């Protein structure tokens, strides 16, 4: 189910209940992973933005809050956990559903990500089914 809003067309018509395309932000320092994630998310009808680390991701969120964030853990400059903690303190920063997406599969690490405010957690490697399942569980699909 898409959130809806009223928009004005170029010809001046008001269009009601146009489903808004949801925005997903992929934060990962690997271009390959971002590309794979982008393809999966686009197949799920998301518009996709990419960032190479947490700081870049945060800058993105300050311009436009995404509906979903796919978040790597270990990255240069600012890692995933720090990004998450900062995001949740931003105005409107509790809205995005954040899904960690990391090679870390230690359950204590998963637990600390959830306790820090992540909505879901994906252990790499992932495929389209897993991403869809996790976004559904996070309530954004």
């Amino acid at each position, binding site marked *: 189910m898409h959130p809806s809003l009223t928009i004005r067309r170029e010809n001046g018509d008001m269009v009601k209940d146009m489903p808004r395309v949801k925005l997903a932000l992929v934060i990962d320092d690997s271009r390959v992973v971002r590309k794979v994630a982008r393809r999966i998310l686009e197949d799920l009808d998301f518009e996709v933005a990419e960032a190479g680390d947490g700081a870049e991701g945060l800058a993105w969120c300050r311009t436009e809050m995404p509906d979903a964030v796919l978040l790597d853990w270990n990255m240069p400059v600012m890692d995933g956990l720090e990004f998450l903690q900062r995001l949740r303190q931003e105005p409107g920063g509790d809205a995005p559903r954040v899904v960690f997406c990391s090679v870390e*599969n*230690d*359950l204590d690490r*998963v*637990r600390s*990500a*959830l306790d820090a405010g*992540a909505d*879901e*957690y*994906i*252990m790499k490697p*992932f495929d389209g*089914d*897993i991403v869809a*399942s*996790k976004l559904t*569980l996070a309530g954004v699909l």
Partner: protein
Amino acid sequence: MTPQDRELIARLSAERAGLRVDPDKTYLLENRLAPVARREGFASVHDLVAAIRDRDDDRLAWRAVEAMSPTETAFFREPRTFECVVSEVLPDLAMRRPGGTIRLWSAACGGGQEVYSLAMALSESSPPGVTVEVFASDLCERRLEKAQAGVYSQFEVQRGLSARRLVTHFESLDDGFVLSPRVRQMVRWRRVNLMEDLSRLGQFDLVLCRGVLGHLLEDARARVLSGLERTLAPGGRLVLGAGESAPGLSPVADRPGFHGRASAARAAA
């Protein structure tokens, strides 16, 4: 595999488990039977089938039939169904039967994901004042063993299972994850072929049979359904998968997958 090999496997699957296997799907047959051939020490699928035919080897025939049965499963498949069970159906039964016992049965449990989804949800919020007994069965010995062990790969625990439930109910084990003994011990296991007489199993308040009926031949489906119907306690419900139906039973309003005897379904509505 020769055409005769494929015909034999299709016939065995139909006779023993009611399964609809298309003998023309060479690739599918080869694919499913190759691991059996390897495990049993045969050089090829053809050799495996030859042994089934020439030695009249009953055990091998079963391994082949089991391999031909569908495997698709996930934790909390059709999540609404599980919500209904735990937040509506069980509390309702508990209220009407204080001090009593409620019996649940996952009748084609596969690798255990379905019944453990129930067990996890129950361990999080069990209905007060009643004993809930959880049974699970499957045709396939290997899948039952896997289910009983409660060990799942990283891939399997990420299909339908929330990360919160993963950290709550599982521990890491080698490359995978093992379900806590507390949840595992809630379930009692048994090998059951749904084509056989089911009356010895007793009666159940809830029978889950999902992802099977669609793979059965028409006669087999009718037979399995009437067998399952007879295991339903008064007011009991049969829970089917999405898109599956039971001609003799009526769907229960607002409870996806739930079917009951017509009168009972109406009374509850």
